[in-house]
């Protein structure tokens, strides 16, 4: 690390520096965060500080007026706060200084450093951390400027590159495809066959995007009724599928069957009454619940587990492919922010 002459530093413990078992030791609850701020404030050489504490990362951005001792004082404070020997802490944590610290903040906020590249949640977490830092008096002129400008740069990265585009988990991929078919999901009805974990997640994701009308089908009506009570929706027996399928626009199926539940002849019979209403079939079952020939029908869109997984994987690859461009923007922006901080006399020259 190049800490020597820097007044701005960041100490980070994250998935890139240590495995999960070690990261767990750095996790803090709200009260502990407050306590750590207090411990830091007790050191007169720490002028400003910002703690970012998520399930996957602990980071401490700080401004010190003693460039030489600042780093060791912070490490000692953290070592005693966590009860982790200093040698061990130094092995777990990585320190960046000056412009690199700003670049790191931008990259973290934009999701470039997240375990799931491009995930959006981290931006909100950094915002919350900043808000907490302001409440507890950790932020001064340097942290305020750095974070506000860093947020702008992170937003620029997210808007000008595909880093956050495309869903990367199967349930959200299915919801995105529903949106491409139906536009809005407010008036869409979804039928869930089988009560597996992915079905439940997909149903939840659909509900969060506006779907209200759900049907829950199971091999036994009792089971369907019990799940429908828990998830919300109309219970059905799978055996009578042809009597109610036309009432739905999306079918999510993940039940154990030896023969496909939904066949092309069955759909062909039901199709005229749908009057061109699209039908989105999400087959999450193994063996498959929907005959692949159903895809041949007009207005029927069939996706199985492999299709959804492939889309998720492709989206992730697209995100990773854009990391280089995003890092370049982060570098340019951190350079500009650093110069601005120097001009204002908030940091000393590198």
């Amino acid at each position, binding site marked *: 690390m190049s800490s020597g002459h820097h007044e701005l530093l960041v100490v980070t413990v994250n998935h890139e520096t240590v495995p999960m078992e070690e990261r767990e030791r750095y996790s803090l609850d709200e009260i502990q965060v407050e306590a750590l701020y207090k411990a830091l404030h007790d050191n007169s050489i720490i002028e400003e500080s910002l703690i970012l504490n998520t399930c996957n990362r602990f980071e401490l951005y700080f401004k010190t007026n003693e460039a030489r001792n600042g780093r060791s004082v912070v490490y000692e404070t953290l070592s005693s706060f966590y009860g982790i020997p200093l040698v061990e802490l130094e092995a777990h944590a990585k320190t960046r200084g000056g412009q690199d610290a700003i670049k790191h903040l931008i990259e973290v906020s934009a999701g470039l450093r997240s375990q799931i590249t491009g995930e959006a949640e981290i931006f909100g977490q950094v915002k919350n951390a900043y808000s907490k830092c302001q409440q507890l008096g950790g932020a001064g002129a340097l942290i305020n400027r750095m974070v506000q400008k860093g947020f702008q740069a992170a937003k620029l990265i997210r808007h000008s590159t595909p880093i956050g585009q*495309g869903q990367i988990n199967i349930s959200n991929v299915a919801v995105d495809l529903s949106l*491409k*078919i*139906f536009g809005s999901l407010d008036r869409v009805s979804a039928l869930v066959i089988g009560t597996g974990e992915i079905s439940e997640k997909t149903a939840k994701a659909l509900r969060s995007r506006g779907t209200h009308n759900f049907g829950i089908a199971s091999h036994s009506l009792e089971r369907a009724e019990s799940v429908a009570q828990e998830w919300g929706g109309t219970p059905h027996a799978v055996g009578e599928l042809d009597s109610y399928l036309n009432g739905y626009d999306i079918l999510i199926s993940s039940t154990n069957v030896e023969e496909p539940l939904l066949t092309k002849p069955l759909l062909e019979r039901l199709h005229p009454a749908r*009057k061109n209403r*699209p039908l989105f079939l999400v087959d999450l079952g193994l063996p498959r619940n929907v005959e692949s020939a159903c895809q041949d029908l007009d207005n029927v*869109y069939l996706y199985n587990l492999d299709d959804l997984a*492939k889309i998720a994987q492709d989206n992730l690859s697209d995100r990773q492919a854009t990391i280089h461009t995003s890092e370049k923007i982060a570098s340019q922006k951190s350079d500009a922010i650093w110069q601005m901080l120097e001009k204002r006399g908030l940091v000393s020259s590198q």
Partner: protein
Amino acid sequence: MSLFGLADREWIFLATVVFTVTTILGSYSTLKLHRKAGRPYTLSLVSFGWILQTIGLYERGLQYGGCPLANRFELVQFLVWSAIALYIFVGPAFRVSLLGMFTSGFASILSILSLGFDSWDSPSREPIFGLSPWIEMHAALALFSYGVFGILALTSSMYLLQSRSLKQKKMGGLFPYMPSIFELTHINLRLLVLGFCILSSSLAIGSVYWTQDIESVNTLKLGATIAVWLAYGVLLFLRNRETLSYKQYSWACIIIFTIALFSLDAVDSSSTPVAGAASISISSTHL
């Protein structure tokens, strides 16, 4: 004759350049930079091109003392002008992503063709509508409905592209930036109704004059116009009865529009200046 130092075809040439640039920028931004072709900048560029085209057509119209619809070049330009006008004034209500890029592409292709073939602009710089502004209205409305059907052909192509991507599970290219197929089917219906109503109004006006002087319209023009009107009428009927699948309906919209474009030849062939038109032009200039 020139306005602000440029002749009518030069204004239209500039408009074509703007439409082409909009298409290229929109495609580059979407396919290479993976950004949504921003509606504001597409709308601004297309509007700018449309203003240039309007100046060119206005300048041409001043030479007739009426709507410039006297040869194939002018018919195509007026059709393009109508389609762009629809995109600018009604398009934002549709909220269809990439419609601006598709519309500017459509305008570029037709404009380049009409500028490329000199024979399309065979001069007939005389008024063709005689004394009645209603006949002019009839022609302008008919051409405007073709503009609407042009946009309908574009949204139908978008539907087919989007539906094909969903069927074949190809999520690249334009797919992430296009509207949902449900929205496209609704817009297609609204455009068909709008275009059919405008064309029907145009034919209703024309029929009043035709019944007074049956010889004034040649059989080819009459046949072609009625065939196009009937084709869209039947399509609307089938669409309302849900007899056709959306895929068949979209293909039908594209095919009928292509045929309708060729039917403009029949319209053009009948556009000989009316007797005494030259004197009308001269007198209107004096006024």
